[in-house]
């Protein structure tokens, strides 16, 4: 098996995922197209060498439907010989797309491939693709289906994270995010989104709330108490009878925001990089996905991290930087607690609580963020992971070159 190298990574800034968000008037196709064009243009790629483009997208219907990856390839004026495939592993779609692109390179199926993702949550709302899990009684009942927020609150209850604990985590995330922007840590990878005239529509993450404090967060109402009262608390207690009550601690301020955005990561073999005079920035050490208990849904990162570390022959302490999607504050807090990871190594530049979580794109964004951060700090290894709907986890370990 040959090595897969990361040659470049780009991402759009994240626009607020609502009608007033800056990217609402930009199509999902345009977002995906602009990431593909940027990665081509920055690297002066002859796209005839790009065998395949794998894009994550979690609501692949409407304008995001019918294989948006191939349509974006065509719209970005890539060579028509470049294939495209859209995949869905819920919140880890973007990382899974990168893992698949890397795997294609490793197995020799492709010499050069792009992984990435796109989600315009303002234009194609979350849940638009429907699905059987919650609606079909044959599966909903036996798997204790409950919305993700209930799972996040269940993690907090079961592992003892109070409202103050999760709010403190959220404040730190906002502060880290603000500092990262101030210091220009994302400068290398953010590509401004262009409007229909070619002008700049958005050049910064617009969901951030750097002024968030314990007091301001403390004023927010829990988001999932109502859902819990409609039966979901009682359901989750059937899987976790040890919980007397579910403590509803999550709210809009300590959960990931709804945003629009896209990302792309360029993978290739060593030979293909040399042929195109590209400098490899990082190498894939290991990749993995797992299934975990679906009711609580969001505990997968710990288990997939253990699995991917084992595959890489590494220990928790061997990793310099951890990047775990901040779907909800309790998710990274749980992994830090279970794997004994210091906060200094986890989500050093903030996360989705500050930036938002464009579902299909986030995983690729996190991977790119870690490439940048390893280069900036001179550190060696990073582990990127996300919790995933229906109880899964996907992870990737990279090593700076």
């Amino acid at each position, binding site marked *: 098996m040959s090595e897969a190298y990361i040659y470049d990574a780009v991402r759009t800034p994240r626009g607020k995922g609502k009608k007033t968000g800056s990217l609402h008037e930009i199509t999902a196709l345009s977002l995906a197209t602009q990431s593909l064009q940027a990665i081509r243009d920055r690297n002066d790629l002859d796209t005839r060498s790009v065998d395949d483009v794998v894009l994550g997208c979690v609501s692949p219907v409407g304008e995001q439907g019918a294989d948006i990856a191939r349509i974006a390839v065509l719209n970005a004026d890539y060579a028509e010989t470049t294939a495209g495939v859209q995949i869905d592993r819920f919140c880890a779609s973007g990382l899974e797309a990168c893992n698949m692109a890397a795997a294609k390179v490793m197995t020799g199926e492709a010499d050069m491939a792009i992984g990435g993702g796109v989600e315009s949550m303002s234009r194609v709302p979350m*849940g638009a693709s*429907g699905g059987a899990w*919650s*609606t*079909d*009684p*044959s599966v*909903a*009942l*036996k798997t*204790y*289906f*409950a919305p993700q927020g209930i799972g996040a609150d269940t993690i907090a209850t079961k592992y003892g994270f109070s409202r103050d604990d999760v709010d403190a985590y959220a404040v730190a995330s906002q502060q880290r995010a603000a500092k990262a922007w101030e210091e220009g840590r994302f400068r290398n990878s953010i590509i401004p989104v262009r409007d229909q005239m070619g002008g700049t529509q958005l050049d910064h993450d617009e969901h951030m709330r750097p002024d968030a404090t314990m007091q301001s967060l403390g004023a927010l109402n829990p988001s999932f108490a109502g859902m819990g009262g*409609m*039966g*979901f*608390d*009682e*359901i989750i*207690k*059937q*899987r*976790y*009878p*040890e*919980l*007397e*009550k579910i403590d509803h601690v999550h709210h809009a301020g300590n959960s990931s925001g709804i945003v629009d955005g896209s990302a792309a990561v360029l993978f290739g073999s060593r030979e293909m990089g040399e042929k195109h005079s590209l400098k490899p920035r990082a190498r894939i050490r290991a990749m993995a996905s797992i299934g975990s208990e679906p009711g609580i849904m969001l505990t997968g990162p710990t288990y997939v991290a253990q699995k991917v570390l084992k595959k890489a022959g590494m220990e928790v302490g061997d990793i310099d930087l951890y990047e775990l999607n901040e779907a909800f504050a309790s998710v990274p807090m749980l992994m830090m607690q279970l794997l004994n990871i210091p906060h200094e190594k986890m989500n050093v530049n903030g996360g989705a609580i500050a930036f938002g979580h464009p579902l299909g794109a986030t995983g690729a964004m996190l991977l790119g963020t870690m490439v940048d951060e390893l280069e900036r700090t001179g550190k060696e290894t990073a582990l990127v992971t996300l919790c995933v709907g229906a109880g899964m986890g996907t992870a990737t370990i990279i090593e700076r070159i």
Partner: protein
Amino acid sequence: MNLETFSFTIDDDGIAHAIFDVPGRSMNTLTGKAIGDIIAITEEVATNDSIKGLVISSGKASGFCAGADLGEMGQSAGGGKPESEMTEAELKKLQFDRGFSLNKTLRELETCGKPIAVALNGLALGGGLEVALAGHYRVAANDNPKIQFGLPEAKIGLLPGAGGTQRLPRLVGMQEALPLILQGKSFTAEKALTMGVVNELAPGSETVSRAKAWVKANPDAKAPWDEKGFKVPGGVPHRSPGAGQVATFSNAMLAANSYGNYPAQKNILSCVYEGIQVPIDAGLRIETRYFINTQQRPEAKAMIRSLFLSTQALSKGASRPAGFPKYQLNKVAVIGAGLMGAGIAYEQAKAGIETVLVDTSPENADKGKDYARKLVEKQVGRGKMAADKGQALLDRIHPTDSYDDVKGADLVVEAVFEDPELKAKITQMAEAQLSETAVMGSNTSTLPITGLAGASARPENFIGIHFFSPVERMGLVEIIRGKDTSDETLAKTIDYVLAIRKTPIVVNDSRGFYTSRCFGTYTQEGLAMLAEGIKPAIIENVGRQSGMPMGPLEVSDSVGLDTALKVGRQMAAATGVDYSSNELGQMMAWLVEDQGRVGRKAGKGFYDYNEKGKPDRLWPELNTRVEVTVDECPPALKQEIKNRLLVRQAIEVARCFEEGVITDARDGDIGSILAWGFAPYTGGCCSYVDLIWGIEAFVAEADRLADTYGDRFRPGALLRDMAAKGQGFYDRFPPAGTAASQAA
């Protein structure tokens, strides 16, 4: 046509009229014969060119049809012996064809190309409503106060299998249809009209003529779902986001409320969810497959037998000894106007019985009547009882402190404290006023009746009448025969219980009788788990999720922890255990004697209670006394705890059979459900053993639990013998009056 359950005529306009009238019954049900007749009528209407349309009505004043014949269905539920020669595929096809026959016929009727109208003079429930829904037009009586519609199948573990899960949602939408089918609640004619379940209301005497007029005026009638461009009201999952939400929340509500214990309701959801996404012909096939799947579950057989057939039989006096005339109860005295006595007095007065309520002073007696006053006020206030009826009820309760007023009573219920001496005194004082034929009953939950009868001059007239609290809400009465109690006294007492519209079970004398003794094992097992270090929330959640109405600790709080401590000490003394040195005994003593946490009545026990007396939270400091060693409950442990809680109760029930305390499997089942809320989906403790486990598997599991947790789980000689012979409780202790009991 050779019809038995319908008459069939054709008028001069070519409109056929089928009148449903099952001979020899006061109410129409869909017997096998009736279904055969519907098939014949359908064929006739479809093929006879001179017939222009059909009106279906009922020949019974009681209404249209009460649904399937559960007597017949109870026989076939649970799947008979597989036809041994058949392959699995052949057998499945046979089962499907049988189950589909009524669906197929009703669909043929619906699509025969001629208008079909149904005149509903009275109730149409279950299969009755399903037949009506297959017509194109329904006229219901607006002058019959007893008229009601509904699909109650889910209440007894079944699902509507004659199109109800398909036609009702297509008529009224998923959101309105699902609760009606899942909960089986009935609704009025007005509600039916508002929803569109019926099309017109008319005086009962005109329903047939209106139906005929409609048939005449609408020769091209079709069901809405056979019209081009038909859309289900409120939409369909995956085509309408709203309908998707309805599906999601319906699933959640069912999972939250039933803990997944009721396969019928899950299958109803599946029928609607899957069936509504496809054309109705496919939907009906899906419904039949889920119907058969449901019918073959042990829960269905258990629930039909216990919740319908047995409850109905006992409520009609199935265990009453034959040969005694019906006992007239003109006057009944209740002695002791406390909570129980007051409740009993209220129930008697409600049933029209003149009631003397005796206590030590007129004030105390009147306080007991206040209980009835409050209940009446509440119901009158809510419009559930007419003011004059309420007053008449209260006028039948005569509070007094004089035993002279007991004179002439046909029956006495003594309901004072559980004090044998006091009870003896009262028995003698009351009997002094009674005729030689009057019944002397004692409402006690634990004291042996034979002992109490020692104070009686006429022990053959003496009997235990054990009511449950709160009397007005609990439907069961446990009748206890003392050693000398006569058959005649038992018959009279059953007549009394039926007169106040409660369900009697009959047991023999023993400490704690049947219900109090077995009920205690649930809480005892919960307390044992607590002492083992299992986290209280786990015990409580799994208790409820097993189908019990409350967790064992909450039940203990309701009974009173002081009582539990007392009983525990008595039991320990009786069995030679040093209660003061074992973990459980020490914990209970600490709770009651050091912490003053005596239960709900004090607002604090295992739980802290709010001002409304509802449990607020488990007392957090409980864990300072009992170290929690098991604080996670994965599915395997959950199953283990569930088995401990339920098997322990069933083992005690088996011991009651072994000791002759109880002699009838039907009494065992109904007693366990109605007295202490034993998981109803099991059909009760006996059916839990017979059907949910099977006798051999049950005995093996009990042995395993005994090996692990102690001999309280150990099966006795009776269970072993039953297992060796492959006999369930219903084989060994068949219900009185059934064919099996006569053979036995």
